[in-house]
């Protein structure tokens, strides 16, 4: 999997999202470049407010109306440009080619409809069939996400299911149309630790079965290390580092990545306190010159406050890149 085999499934080039407010405009997604290959899991990590969810929503072109819009860039899926599609063509892509799992299972299922109705709605939209087989396919989807007694659960309302069960149902909706890629936006944040582990295992199994790609958004570098092959680290709307997980984990190039990794609790050999990152990222409307992480960075030099560092290779083969003056200077 390590070597890039042919064209990527999803390729994002120079993607910029603009939010215009009375106080001026700012860019929660600022010049993103990344790609995901079939069967691969890419992690997007960052603190809340770093633009992770904005990135996810811009991939399916569901940014909040009026408030935000894609200013420039390109998103291709299997070579097809998504930004050029009409709204109705884009609707066919959503759910069938790109599926999504949202953050909060408590609220992401519609309380007024049964689980079955919500799964078969997606099925009906993307590959219609007779009512009976719709139901069977919905039961099938529930079975795939390891819901016990799916024939009964299918008629349950969301309020009758546990949190973990609901998140599985959301997963069933996502996989029901055999998407090529699933975007999972912090799907486990609100779950118990044990339920969380089960859910991650399930995702990995489903991926092995179907060969789909996963874009996993989280603030937890521990999950990334566990689940992803490659990772993109975001800070203040910019990608500050990207590359293979094992290499970055072993040898982070950006001080922010280093801090995120240090914040992961280790099971063994833990010495001293868990590290947290001091300070706050700049407010979206602040005018930032230089590296946005500089005020919190323990290695910051005067140059970091003046000029934005370019994105450069952090090692010889060009797979690991970072945006930091320390790397430039190497």
């Amino acid at each position: 999997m390590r070597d890039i085999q042919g064209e990527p499934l999803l390729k994002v080039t120079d993607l910029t999202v603009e939010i215009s407010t009375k106080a001026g405009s700012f860019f929660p997604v600022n010049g993103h470049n990344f790609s995901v290959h079939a069967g691969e899991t890419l992690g997007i990590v960052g603190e809340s407010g770093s633009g992770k969810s904005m990135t996810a929503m811009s991939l399916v072109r569901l940014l909040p109306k009026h408030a935000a819009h894609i200013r420039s860039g390109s998103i291709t899926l299997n070579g097809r440009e998504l930004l050029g599609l009409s709204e109705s063509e884009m609707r066919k892509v959503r759910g069938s080619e790109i599926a999504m799992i949202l953050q909060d299972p408590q609220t992401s299922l519609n309380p007024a409809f049964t689980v079955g109705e919500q799964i078969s709605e997606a099925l009906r939209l993307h590959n219609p069939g007779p009512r009976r087989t719709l139901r069977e396919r919905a039961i099938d989807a529930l079975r795939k996400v390891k819901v016990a007694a799916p024939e009964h659960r299918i008629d349950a309302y969301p309020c009758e299911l546990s949190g973990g069960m609901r998140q599985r149902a959301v997963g069933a909706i996502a996989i029901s149309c055999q998407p090529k890629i699933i975007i999972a936006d912090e799907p486990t944040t609100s779950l118990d630790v044990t339920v969380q582990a089960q859910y991650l295992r399930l995702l990995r199994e489903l991926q092995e079965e179907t060969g789909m790609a996963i874009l996993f958004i989280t603030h937890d570098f521990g999950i990334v290390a566990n689940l992803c092959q490659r990772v993109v680290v975001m800070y203040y709307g910019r990608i500050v580092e990207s590359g293979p997980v094992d290499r970055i984990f072993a040898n982070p190039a950006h001080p922010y990545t280093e801090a995120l990794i240090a914040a992961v609790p280790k099971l063994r050999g833990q010495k001293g306190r868990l590290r947290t990152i001091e300070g706050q990222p700049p407010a979206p409307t602040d005018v930032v010159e230089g590296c946005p992480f500089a005020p919190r960075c323990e290695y910051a030099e005067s140059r970091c406050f003046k000029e934005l560092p370019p994105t450069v290779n952090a090692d010889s083969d060009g797979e690991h890149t970072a945006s930091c003056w320390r790397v430039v200077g190497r």
Partner: protein
Amino acid sequence: MFRFLVTRISSSLFALLIITVIVFLLSHLSGSPVDALLPDDATQEQIDSFVREWGLDQPLWQQYLTFLVNAVQGNFGTSLKWPGEDAMGFVLDRMPATLKLGGLAILISVVIALPLGIAAAVYRGSAVDHGAQMFALLGQSMPNFWLGIILIWVFSVWLGWLPTSGMGTFAHAILPAVAIAWFQVSALARLTRSAMLEVLDAEYIKLARVKGVSEGMVVWKHALRNAAVVPLTYFGILAASILTGSVVIETVYSWPGMGWVALEAIRGRDFPVVQAVIIAYAVVYMLSNLFVDLLYVVVDPRIRRG
């Protein structure tokens, strides 16, 4: 669900009981019930038989029981203003007219208010939204009897499109129904708007869009189904104010329904009929609230299963 309905029915019955107590006490407030409930020229024999029938020589609580037993059987005595008419029977004859008007008013308010409130929420901050809010503010401040008169002035006198008053063809019902509905449209549209705004922000709406559901279906199926509970809550109040509205508007348009009867009876000091009207109104009101509870059960699975 069963428990939910039983609680609702029993509390309705309790409220109804309180109304009978109030009505009963009021007929005694005005002095002797004989004066209130019998014509002034009643003979001694009539008075004696009346006292016996209603147990007026008994203690108050026994009189109330007699009253209650009679009330349950629909016996409120005979009308004073319309001699020979059974009070409740007379009122029940007029009930279809009132229900027709009220039903049309509800229909008009829902048909206008729901799309208006939904459009205001979906196009939040737009001209539609501002227009709807202005309309709501104006509608909630407009006295309905005055609106009724102005409508007659414009549509009957000036334009000559619709009849001024009375009952008969469908055209007769339009102006009074609009006059009753006006206030409800404002209130219902305002409520629908705020309920929809809340629901449209929900995660499950985002998930529906992510599934590839079209915007129309997102609004009318996913959002409305959840937002509908809030306007439903208002439906109970709606029933009450349409009832109140009908008393006023029936007077404006000389629409021969229960409200018209009530005022005529008060003017004629016909207390048996007034009692019958009040109880009949209360029953209609309780039944419509019960109907709303049933709608709840249909809309909200949490109640259905709970």
